[in-house]
């Protein structure tokens, strides 16, 4: 039985970091939130462009995502920063997060009386939160409490051959140990959705997956373009990828071989353990934000071209199968999976190394993106802002 060092939260969920999240409920309160976070040790702001003038499912998705991020067990305490007139229900968001039992405070800029007073009041509350949670010590907890997100970005031919299948092994190992793993990026299921659907626990879940892929295509068609007109990209084709099927088949390999327990909406929290699929865009940052809102506490991220991005509340481990990228961007790359291509290591051996680094990250080891302060953040929108 493998153990990690985790923070057991009042709701029983386990985090591997101890952040204080400063969550603005509208773009208009993002600066105040960022200013408060800058001054309080352990605090991290989630500035975003959303929260107002959104309607229907798009509005609901933003609310669900903000709540999910606050509930994430890597977050020990939350300060919700509202403006006062936005569409997102400020106190409902705070109450939903507080249902986890973690300390939650709220400030509303229009009620407090402007930026200076809100910042002062926010600092007072965030400082109190820091004093409440900074002393919390991680304890030895079974690895099965980990929730891992799997992402790929800046892909090249090595992604499908080396880094993605190796991540699949790491995902299988975590699932076999009783943990939870999440695959997202609906755009990159197109042409491979039948493979994923076959692996769903029931035919109904398989149909749900196919429906999400169809909806993704329908949204693109609303713009009067065929999403596949540009897929694969000229760069993909030059690199040897001949069809969208080939690109997608390479992408889905990062989820290994475990049965799919359910297909989740963006930011939805899985109800059990095992492998889950989440509806998200292929855009890396929004995809990771969705999975972290769904409770992921650690992220593994494969890249062929090399990307530096991280996440404000979960460590992100970067893996490349491209030898040149590993050398060129060693500042950002944690694991060199090009040994699979060169024949020095098997997919299984690299998969095991990835899994070991996930456990190390859970024990407090900082992957490169985290150590360099990468906190890229973005929430997926499914409709225009009105």
């Amino acid at each position, binding site marked *: 039985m493998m153990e990690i060092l985790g923070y057991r939260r009042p709701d029983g969920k386990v985090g591997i970091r101890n952040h204080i999240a400063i969550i603005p409920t509208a773009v208009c309160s993002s600066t105040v939130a960022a200013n408060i976070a800058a001054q309080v040790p352990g605090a991290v702001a989630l500035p975003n462009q959303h929260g107002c003038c959104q309607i229907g499912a798009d509005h609901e998705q933003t609310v669900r995502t903000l709540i999910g991020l606050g509930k994430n067990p890597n977050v020990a305490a939350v300060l919700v920063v509202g403006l006062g007139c936005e569409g997102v229900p400020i106190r409902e968001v705070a109450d939903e997060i507080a249902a986890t039992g973690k300390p939650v405070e709220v400030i509303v800029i229009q009620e407090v009386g402007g930026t200076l007073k809100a910042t002062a009041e926010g600092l007072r509350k965030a400082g109190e939160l820091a004093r409440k949670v900074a002393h919390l010590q991680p304890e030895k907890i079974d690895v099965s409490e980990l929730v891992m997100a799997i992402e790929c970005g800046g892909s090249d031919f090595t992604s499908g051959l080396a880094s993605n299948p190796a991540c699949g092994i790491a995902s299988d190992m975590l699932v076999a140990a009783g943990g939870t793993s999440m695959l997202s990026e609906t755009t990159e299921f197109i042409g*491979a959705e039948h493979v994923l659907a076959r692996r769903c626990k029931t035919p109904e879940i398989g149909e749900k997956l196919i429906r999400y892929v169809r909806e993704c295509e329908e949204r693109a068609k609303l713009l009067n373009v065929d999403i596949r007109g540009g897929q694969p990209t000229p760069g993909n084709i030059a690199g040897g990828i001949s069809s969208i099927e*080939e690109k997608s088949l390479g992408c889905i390999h990062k989820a290994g071989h475990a049965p799919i327990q359910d297909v989740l909406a963006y930011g939805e929290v899985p109800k059990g353990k095992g492998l889950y699929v989440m509806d998200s865009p292929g855009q890396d940052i929004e995809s990771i934000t969705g999975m972290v809102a769904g409770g992921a506490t650690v992220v593994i991220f494969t890249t062929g071209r090399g990307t530096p991005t991280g996440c404000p509340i979960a460590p992100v481990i970067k893996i490349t199968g491209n030898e040149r990228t590993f050398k060129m961007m060693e500042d950002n790359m944690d694991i060199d999976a090009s040994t699979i291509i060169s024949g020095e290591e098997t997919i299984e051996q690299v998969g095991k190394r990835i899994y070991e680094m996930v456990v190390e990250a859970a024990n407090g080891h900082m992957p490169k993106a985290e150590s360099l302060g990468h906190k890229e953040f973005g929430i997926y929108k499914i409709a225009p802002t009105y």
Partner: protein
Amino acid sequence: MKKQAVVINVKDNVATLVDDFTSGTEIHYFIGEQEQSVILLQDIPLGHKVAIREIKKGEEVIKYGESLGGATADIKIGQHVHVHNMESLRGRGDK
């Protein structure tokens, strides 16, 4: 010896080259535990695919054990497999 090509699934009828190779080169790869080879009939660049089995026009090109699309011409063992002799079968609004 440095690996020259990768076959992901035993069902695959293509191998992916992990370096640039010229026509006439014998390329070694593994299908499962078994080492096999193919002689390239043309220059094929890094990351591109070579047929390791005969693929008739209309048959599926298989990689990852799954269909990448259909062959648009007969493809011989050793030939380059790419957009010039195979096509996506998905998202074909033109068909």
